């Protein structure tokens, strides 16, 4: 048991005297997450809204597909994207393998079902009286859609936070598509995997604490925004 507590105190020390290599992994994680989340939200929110708001033939089927993809294993995403972007793959010429952009593609595919499913669900769970009320005020068409989207803004935030959780915590995609290359595509999670494998618990714990700190800062920012929106 002792090595865990020891590791923890060493970790605090490491964070305070962090070397450049580790800061590099933090930087990659932040850049990668921003890219994946931007792509996920700009594609997922509109698709989720369309799925939840409109009735169309095949809607139930689309729901089932999205719900199934929620359980997509990271290594399967890694495998499929690898097949596409490796040199021999159809997108091989784009030279995306072992780059941050290539990793972002994999993470986006991983997070999209979450944002689509939760957005569709939020839109479907809007109070049935909302549409009727908007109609009594003379709203129709896109105006009604825009107001409906705004009405479920808190649920949309929750969708984004959940997707962020999946993106920031995954190892499989980053490992397979990024290759854990020092100075280049090494992220916090792949670094933890590596250090733990080498038996360096202290560095692993230090990196874990940093990862949580980033998430905490993000949620603190969101909760501030939410309070502003409430008032």
């Amino acid at each position: 048991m002792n090595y865990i507590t020891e590791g923890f105190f060493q970790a605090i020390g490491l964070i305070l005297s962090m070397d450049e290599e580790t800061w590099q992994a933090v930087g990659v994680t932040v850049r990668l997450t921003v890219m994946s989340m931007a792509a996920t939200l700009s594609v997922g929110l509109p698709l989720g809204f369309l799925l939840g708001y409109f009735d169309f033939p095949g809607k139930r089927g689309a729901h089932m597909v999205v719900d199934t993809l929620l359980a997509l294993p990271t290594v399967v995403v890694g495998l499929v994207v690898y097949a596409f972007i490796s040199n021999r793959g159809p997108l091989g010429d784009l030279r995306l393998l072992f780059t941050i952009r290539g990793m972002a593609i994999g993470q986006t595919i991983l997070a999209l079902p979450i944002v689509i499913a939760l957005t569709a669900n939020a839109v479907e769970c809007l109070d049935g009286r909302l549409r009727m009320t908007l109609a009594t005020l003379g709203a129709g068409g896109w105006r009604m859609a825009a107001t409906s989207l705004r009405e479920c803004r808190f649920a949309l935030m929750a969708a984004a936070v959940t997707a962020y959780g999946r993106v920031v915590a995954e190892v499989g995609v980053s490992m397979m598509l990024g290759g854990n290359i020092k100075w280049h595509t090494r992220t916090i999670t792949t670094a933890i995997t590596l250090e733990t494998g080498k038996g360096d618990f202290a560095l692993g714990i230090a990196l874990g604490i940093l990862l949580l700190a980033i998430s905490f800062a993000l949620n603190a920012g969101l909760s501030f925004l939410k309070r502003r929106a409430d008032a």
Partner: protein
Amino acid sequence: MKNIYSLRAVTHSYGEHHTLDVESLDIPEGGVTGLTGPNGSGKSTLLKILAFLQPPRSGKLLFGGEPSSGREREIRRDVTLLLQDPFLLRRTVFENIAYGLKLRGISRAETETRVRDAMARVGMATEDFAPRPWFRLSGGEAQRVSLAVRLALRPRVLLLDEPTANVDEASAILIKEAVVRARRDWGTTIVIASHDLAWLHDVATEIVGMYGGRVVGDGAANLIRGDWRIEGPEDRYVSIMLDGFKITADAPQPGILAKCAALSPSDINVTVSPAASPDGHNSISCTLTQMSMERTTGSILCATDCGGISLKARISPDLARELKLCPGMRLTLSFPREALKFISSLGSV
């Protein structure tokens, strides 16, 4: 007076379930029309049709003297409905009231003025309530904000679905005043569905009664639903009420089931002494519970409790004075057998 709405043979159904069948109904422009009737009689359905939120299944619906079909979107700008179960957007009170104005492209300055005015009309101080979020309102306050949302539009037609059902006395009075002022200030046509006959009689210029999806007379009609059975050699229908007294009626018209009989309040004779009833008359004793002035007729409407059922009788103010009526008194109501008419409701036909 011109009619803003004219309905001819308008029907509606939810799936297989026939809900509404209005043979003919005219609603005068600039008036306050009350809709009354028991739960499920089709009031909300009718209001949604009048608000052009759902098209009738069949029939003719004229708005402003012209057929409405094809003009629904345009008409919806002039007509607004306060739903039975009001709903506020997740925004501040100010933003809720401003929403419909923004849709209509009204300037910021004009919007401020209108929001302030609408809030004053429902008795709400702007400084206190305008910045409040939607969840920091009591039920009565939320209802008044919902009304202010509609008043800010200064609509040509304002439809209200049971606006006083879940509010306290003070809010009910404020809502009544707001309705009267809207009509006076802007000539707004108002249609109100309500159970509260006394409240309705205070504001309405006319009252339409509904039962089982159909329009039945002036809304003051007593509806006697009982366990009607055939009795005696002459095929008379008798219903025995809670107290054990009997009400006798003639057989219904062919095709109508003996389920619910209508009795006009004007057909009821009111006396204070127990009167011996002539043959063919019903005579029952009851307690006077409430008296109200009926603005549409100038008469007094006496609500009575007759062993579990309530009956309303319409009398002249002179008679009320002569009998020195006051609530709590025992009265005798008598009415001829022929005055009871079985009515059909959709679903029982």
